[in-house]
C-alpha cells in the first residue's frame, strides 16, 4: 500500500500553490481589494521556471546553486512520512524527529544559500532567518516533548490521532502558533520584510532557483498544515479525506485572516515573544508529564 504515498506527494505538489493563491485572495478581500485569481501563484511559478537564472558574480557559486535543490528535496522528503490526502505513509520509530530535522534543514540550507549570494540584504535576511529559527526551536522542542509524552512514542503511526486530553489541547495550541511563526507570516515575516530588506534571502535568486525556493515555502506551509490536521483527524479513510480538505480550508482562512490584522515585529520583539511562549510550553510539558 506504500505506493499510495505517491498520490499524497502529487496532491501536495499541485495543491500547495493553489492554497497560497486562496490565501492571497482571502487577504485581499480583508484589505478591501479584489485580489488576483487563486491560480496566480501557479502562473507565477510557471513563469519563473521558464526564465533563465542569473547567478551573482560575488557568490559562492556551488553553494548558491545547490541550496534551492536541497531545500526543495528536504521538504518533499518529509511528505513521505507525513500523510496528506490519504492516510498512508512510510513510518518508523523516531520519524517525528526526522520531520523536524528535514524542516529545519530546509530553512538552514535556504539561509546558507542566501548568505553565499554576497548581497548585504540577503545576509541580513539569513541572519534574521536563523535567529528566528533558533528562538522558535525551543518551543518546538517542548511541543515534540508534549506530544511524545501523550502518545508515549516518537512515531507518527502511534501519535496520529491524539487522545482528547488537557495536555494534547495545549500541545496542539502551541503547535498552531509554531506553525504560524515558521511559515513566515506577518508579524513574523521578519527575514523577508519587503520594505526593510527587500525580500531578504530571496533578493538575488532568480528564474528556476527562485521558483524552487518559493515552491518549497508553499510546500512547507502545506506540510505543517497537514501535520497539524493529522493530530486531530481519525484514521478511517471515509471521514478523514473530507475532514482533511475541510480542515485545510479552515486553517488557510484562519491563518491568512490573522495575517491581515497584524503589523510586522522587530526581531528582538519576536524573540522576546518566543521566549515567553517557551515558558508556557514548559508548563504544558509539565502538565503532560503529570499525564493529564
Amino acid at each position, binding site marked *: 500500500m506504500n505506493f499510495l504515498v505517491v498520490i499524497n506527494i502529487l496532491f501536495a505538489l499541485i495543491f500547495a500553490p493553489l492554497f497560497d493563491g486562496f490565501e492571497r485572495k482571502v487577504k485581499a478581500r*480583508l*484589505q478591501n481589494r479584489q485580489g488576483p485569481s487563486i491560480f496566480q501563484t501557479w502562473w507565477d511559478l510557471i513563469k519563473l521556471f521558464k526564465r533563465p537564472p542569473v547567478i551573482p558574480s560575488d557568490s559562492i557559486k556551488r553553494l548558491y546553486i545547490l541550496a534551492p535543490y536541497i531545500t526543495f528535496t528536504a521538504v518533499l522528503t518529509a511528505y513521505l512520512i507525513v500523510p496528506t490526502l490519504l492516510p498512508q505513509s512510510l513510518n518508523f520509530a523516531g520519524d517525528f524527529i526526522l520531520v523536524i530535522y528535514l524542516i529545519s534543514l530546509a530553512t538552514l540550507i535556504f539561509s546558507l544559500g542566501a548568505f553565499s549570494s554576497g548581497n548585504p540584504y540577503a545576509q541580513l535576511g539569513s541572519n534574521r532567518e536563523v535567529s528566528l529559527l533558533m528562538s522558535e526551536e525551543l518551543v518546538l522542542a517542548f511541543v515534540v516533548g508534549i506530544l511524545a509524552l501523550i502518545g508515549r512514542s516518537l512515531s507518527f503511526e502511534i501519535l496520529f490521532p491524539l487522545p482528547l486530553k488537557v495536555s494534547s489541547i495545549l500541545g496542539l495550541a502551541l503547535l498552531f502558533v509554531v506553525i504560524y511563526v515558521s511559515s513566515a507570516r506577518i508579524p513574523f515575516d521578519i527575514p523577508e520584510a519587503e*520594505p526593510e530588506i527587500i525580500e531578504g534571502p530571496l533578493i538575488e535568486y532568480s528564474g528556476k532557483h527562485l521558483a524552487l525556493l518559493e515552491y518549497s515555502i508553499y510546500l512547507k506551509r502545506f506540510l505543517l498544515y497537514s501535520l497539524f490536521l493529522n493530530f486531530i483527524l481519525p484514521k478511517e479513510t471515509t471521514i478523514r479525506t473530507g475532514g482533511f480538505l475541510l480542515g485545510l480550508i479552515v486553517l488557510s482562512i484562519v491563518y491568512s485572516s490573522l495575517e*491581515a*490584522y*497584524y503589523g510586522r515585529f522587530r526581531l528582538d520583539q519576536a524573540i522576546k515573544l518566543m521566549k515567553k511562549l517557551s515558558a508556557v510550553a514548559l508548563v504544558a510539558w509539565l502538565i503532560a508529564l503529570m499525564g493529564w
Partner: protein
Amino acid sequence: MLIEILEKNGSKIIRHDENIIIALVSNKKLKKVAKELFDAGCYYATGVGVDERPKNGAFAMYHILNCEDEKRYVIIKTFAEELKIPSITPVICGANWAEREAMDMIGIEFEGHPEPERLIMPDDWPNGVYPLRKEFHYNQKVPAIEVKPKKRKKDPKIMEVPVGPFHPTLHEPESFELYIEGEKIVGASYRGFHVHRGLEKLAEERLTLNQVPFLAERICGICGFTHNCAYCQAVEDAAKIEVPERAEYIRTILLEVERLHSHLLWFGVACHLLGFDSGFMHTWRIREAFMDIAELLTGNRKTYGMNLVGGVRRDIDENKKKKLLEILDKTKKETKEILDNVAEMKELINRMEGVGVLPKKEAREIGVVGPVARASGIDTDIRRDHPYAAYGELDFKVPVYKEGDVLARFLVRYEETFESFWIVEQALDQMPQGEILNEDYELPEFAYGLGYTEAPRGEDVHFVITEGGNKLYRWRPRAPTYNNLPAVPIMLMGEKLADAPIIIASIDPCFSCTDHVAIIEKGRVCRCSLEEYLRLKR
C-alpha cells in the same frame, strides 16, 4: 529686538514691516549678525543666491531666517566681493545646503564653509559653468566631463547597506547608505538631488508671471497646491496686490483638503512600512474621498490648477458646498475609525515608540519644520504664527509633542488631520460673498516678495524678485523636506536596521535633491566621506 540687532551692526534696512525685515549687511559683519539673530530665536529658513550683475554689478546672497519669537521673517542680503562671501554655516548649521546650492548654481565661494563640495550638480558637470547665472540659457547643453569614482576602503566588520537610489521604501530616487554592525546602524550618509529639474531657470527665462503657478504646482505630486499658493503670495507681497477675501477662503479650503489627503497618504505608507498592509489599503480607500472633493471643487483630482496671482480661477457655489459637507461628514467618521484602530494596535505603537529620536536642540540648529519640529517640542506653525490666506480668522489647535520619536510625529499628524476637518468646515461656513480674482495690478521693477505656507510637511517658502512687465527676475522655492532631510542621519544613528524605513518615512520625505554625505558618530555630526569615517572610528 531684531531690528536693533541689525541697526547696531550698521546694516542698511531696505524694507521693514509687520512680517518681513530686509537688510543689507556688510561682509565683515555677516557672521556676527547671523550669530546674534540665531541666538535671538531665529532658525534658518532658506538661502538664495542671485546673479544681480545686470542691476548692481555683483552677485548677492540672501539668507532668509524665521524668527519665532517675533513672528517675523528676516532677510539678510550681502554682496559678494570678488565672488567671496563669508560662510555662516559654522554659526547656523542649517545654512549648509543653501550655501552649497548657491555655490553650485551661481558660483559664489563661501569662505570658511566646512564642506565646500557639490550638492546639486552631478559629478560629471563641467567646472566653472553655473546654470543660474544670467548668461546661461535654459536650453543650453553642456558636455559631460569624465570623473573617476573614488575607491573606497572596506571594513570587514561594517556592512554597507544601500537604501536607494531605488528601494521599495523610497518612492523617489535618492540614496541613503547605511553602515551596519549586526543589526545596528552605526553611520548613515545621504546623497540626493537626483531629480533636479531646473524649474527656477525655466521660470525666470521662459515663463511669464501667470504661467509660473502651473509650473510651481508641478514641484510636488502630493502638495503641489501649497507650492503655487506660496508662489502667488510671494508675488502678491512683492506687488502689494489685494486678494479678494473669497479667494483667500477658497485657497484655505483647498490647502486643508490637500493636507488631509497628504496625511492620509502618509498614514497608509507608515502602515505599509510597519507591515500592516490592511491599514495601508483602508486609509487609501478613505483618501479617495478627498480626491473626489478636489475633483468636485477644481475639476482635477491632483494638480488643481486653481491659483493665479491675485486670486483663484473657480468659485465654490452652494451646490458644491452642500456636497462637500456631506462627503466630509462621512469621511470624518471613517477616518476616525481607521486611525483609532491603528493607534490602538500595540505592536505598531511598540515599533514607533522611542525610535528615531530627534532632540530639540539639534532640531533647532538644523532648522527642521512642520510636524517634525512639532514632534520635537518646537511650537511652530506658519498658519498660526504668520497668518496667510484666511487662517487669521479661523480657529484651530497646533499639536505639539515633546518626545521627538516616530510615534510623536504620528500623533502630531493624527491630531492635525482632525483639525483640518474643522478648518474646512469653519471656512465653508464663514466664506464671504464677492469677487474671486483681482487682475488690476502692475508688477513693480526689482521688488522683493516672500510667500510662505504651512505645507503638510512643514514650512514652504518662496522668494521672488520681480523684473517688471510680466516677468520674474528670480524665483526660489524651498520645499519643507529640504530642511527636514539633514535631520534623518541623526535620527538613524544607533537604531536597528529594521526601523530605518519608518524613520526615513517619518519626516514624510518629498525628495528632489546631489552629493551630500553626513555621517554621525556618537551623536556628534561629522560630515565626511566613508574613509574619513573609518579613520575616525579607529
